[in-house]
């Protein structure tokens, strides 16, 4: 826990201006970014090299190479079946990669279990929301915060220790309400998560992920099914978080949204990274146009 706090502190002092300044320039020379990374280990918190994932005979990811810059809002796009979710699954330990390495904050995290990845501050949401159906929305939320003392069995049970757990619970509860209010689902706090609508589930999942206070968030189509006004509020919030040092990698099919909000866009096609660059570069890239026209039509 304290690690993340230290990171954030360090980050907030130097990143925002960089981000502002670099918006137009860094993508063409991925290699310089990497060279920089050697000097400033945290500049590229997430780096994927030669990632390959096969399911039986199906090659879902063939050779994925990508880097996510500290404090950036990076978009990951590509036609259906391009391997975006598979890449997420391999990064977060849900699937074990067939080949390749994943580095997070300078550490090789390939093959770690999902909880170990999440503990390091790399948290994801799922494309199909994974709410905990027979728990209330509030319980879903309260699960998320890290460093909960009461997760130790003995502290939860023994009389004196339990008092300290209760105090922390009150604080956790407070934070959860705050988050629920922000996401405008506080009126659903006592509803079973299984009774929420599709969009509400996505909100719940995003809110829950934020409560873990990650340093890097991987969001798999977070806005699918969310109404436009809330979507723009969420984007504002994401931008806010980004400014305070969070890093985002977002899978999204809404091209306009990506183009307007991301400073860096990675395009995947048939299990590999087709190209990457600024929104402008990507938009005009012929390979991208072809991939999208050749693939399924997207809004």
């Amino acid at each position: 826990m304290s690690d993340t706090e230290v990171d954030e502190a360090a980050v907030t002092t130097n990143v925002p201006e960089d981000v502002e300044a670099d918006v137009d320039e860094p993508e063409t020379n991925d290699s310089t970014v990497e060279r920089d990374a050697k000097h400033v280990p945290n500049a590229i918190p997430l780096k994927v090299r030669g990632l390959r994932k096969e399911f039986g005979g199906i090659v879902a990811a063939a050779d994925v190479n990508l880097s996510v810059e500290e404090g950036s809002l990076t978009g990951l796009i590509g036609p259906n079946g391009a391997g975006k979710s598979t890449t997420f699954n391999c990064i977060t330990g849900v699937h074990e990669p067939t080949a390749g390495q994943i580095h997070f904050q300078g550490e090789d995290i390939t093959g770690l279990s999902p909880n170990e990845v999440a503990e390091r501050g790399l948290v994801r949401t799922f494309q199909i929301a994974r709410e905990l159906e027979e728990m209330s929305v509030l319980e879903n939320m309260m699960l998320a915060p890290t460093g909960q003392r009461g997760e130790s069995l003995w502290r939860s049970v023994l009389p004196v220790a339990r008092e300290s757990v209760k105090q922390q619970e009150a604080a956790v509860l407070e934070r959860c309400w705050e988050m629920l209010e922000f996401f405008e689902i506080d009126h659903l706090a006592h509803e079973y998560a299984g009774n929420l609508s599709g969009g509400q589930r996505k909100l719940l999942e995003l809110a829950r992920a934020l409560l873990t206070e990650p340093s890097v968030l991987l969001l798999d189509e977070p806005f699918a099914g969310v109404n436009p006004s809330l979507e723009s509020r969420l984007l504002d919030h994401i931008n806010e978080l980004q400014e305070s040092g969070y890093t985002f990698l977002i899978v999204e099919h809404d091209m306009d949204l990506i183009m307007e909000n991301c400073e860096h866009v990675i395009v995947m096609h048939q299990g590999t990274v087709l190209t990457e660059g600024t929104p402008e570069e990507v938009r005009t890239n012929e390979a991208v146009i072809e991939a999208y026209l050749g693939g399924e039509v997207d809004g």
Partner: protein
Amino acid sequence: MSDDEGGASEPAGLAAVWDNDATKLVALVGGILALYVGAGTLLDYGVRQQLNSIGLLVFYIAVFAMLALALNLHWGYTGLFNIGVIGFMAIGIYVTAVLSKSATVTEPAAGSIGGFGLPLWLGIIGGVVAAAVFGVLVALPALRLRADYFAIVTVGISEIVRFTLLESSFQQMQLFGYFVGLGGGSGLILDFDITDSLLDAVGVAEPYAGLTESLGATLGLGGNPKPVFDSLYYGVLLLVFLVLFYLLLRRVGNSPFGRVLKAIREDEEATKSLGKDTNRFKIKSFTIGCALMGLAGILFYAEQGAITPNAFRPRITFFVWIALIIGGAGSNTGSVMGGAVFAAFLFRGPLFLKNVIQESFDIGAVSTFGQAVSPLISGLNPVPMLAYAIDNLAQLQLVIMGLTLIYLMHNRPEGLLGHRQEPAACIPLTGLSRSDTATAPATETDGGVASKGGDGDE
């Protein structure tokens, strides 16, 4: 002790008392007992018979409620599909027996097997620890299995335990100079007595004996009243254990720990993705549950005088499952209610009825199904069939239980007693908005730390 956890204590008066889960449980158990006493009175039961019947009823209510609670931790909370409950119970009581049977250091006569002669309380601790350790051994490899495979593994293990107990090679052996063993098919005689040892330990054995004599005389119990009081006293002791089980498991459930367990039950992968080391939680939960099953097993069999391996058939596991499903998996209060309802109506009820009928009517004995069915077909005479059914109620009872389980799974998978909400947190979550919770006492001491950004307060 747990009043603070019973939910918001806002509504005053009777309604609030009724809202308290503990009240409901006491009312249910009290109601069941009253029903039995009432029935006994109608049937002109003597005092001794009444007391015996109550002692037995309380015993079964307590053990099934304890077992259902332990299973609820596995299945209701963590989603661990354990259908080997009886195996852990068997390990508990057998280890207790081996540790605490009186020691034999010379080759004993055939058929009598000694133990290590440890004090009973040590034996009980040993039994509970053994069940827990065995639980860890099962859990470490098996927890990553799918629920249905986990079920098959656990039932397989409970049968392996039974075969091992049955095996003549382990019937008797010499260990550290003691002649001990598992007794093989003929089992072990339990030469200890929980009730007496407890009285001795507290130093009230003498007064107790005197009390039973005088009370027995007053109530007109006839000769040797002690067993009657022993069974009542043991029943009360088990109720105390039940209360402890309940309080413990409520604390486990209503806590961040329990919250993670519930989350694992719902979606283990999503829980992992939030940084929870689910394996650690599952092992802990499974181990605690197994230890409690071991303890319940000890309490179940310790006063029976003897144990044989074939008492530990999967049937008991099935009973516990029905109790849990009646009460509604996922709720501790429901588990106790399910245990009580199962014990009173499905387990003891039919036998009570059988006694009543056999004592009230002389319907004669019918030894085979054939003799029962032919008069029914030829002369539409149902009496022999009824007689046969009552005589073989023990079997029919299990048919009824099977049908009950099917009925519940069809119509009330969430339990007969409804879907109960027990908050997975140490503090009440009942507030309708943030401002409501802010009035909770704990928040006041900690409010400043709670809000991270500070943008919430204008």
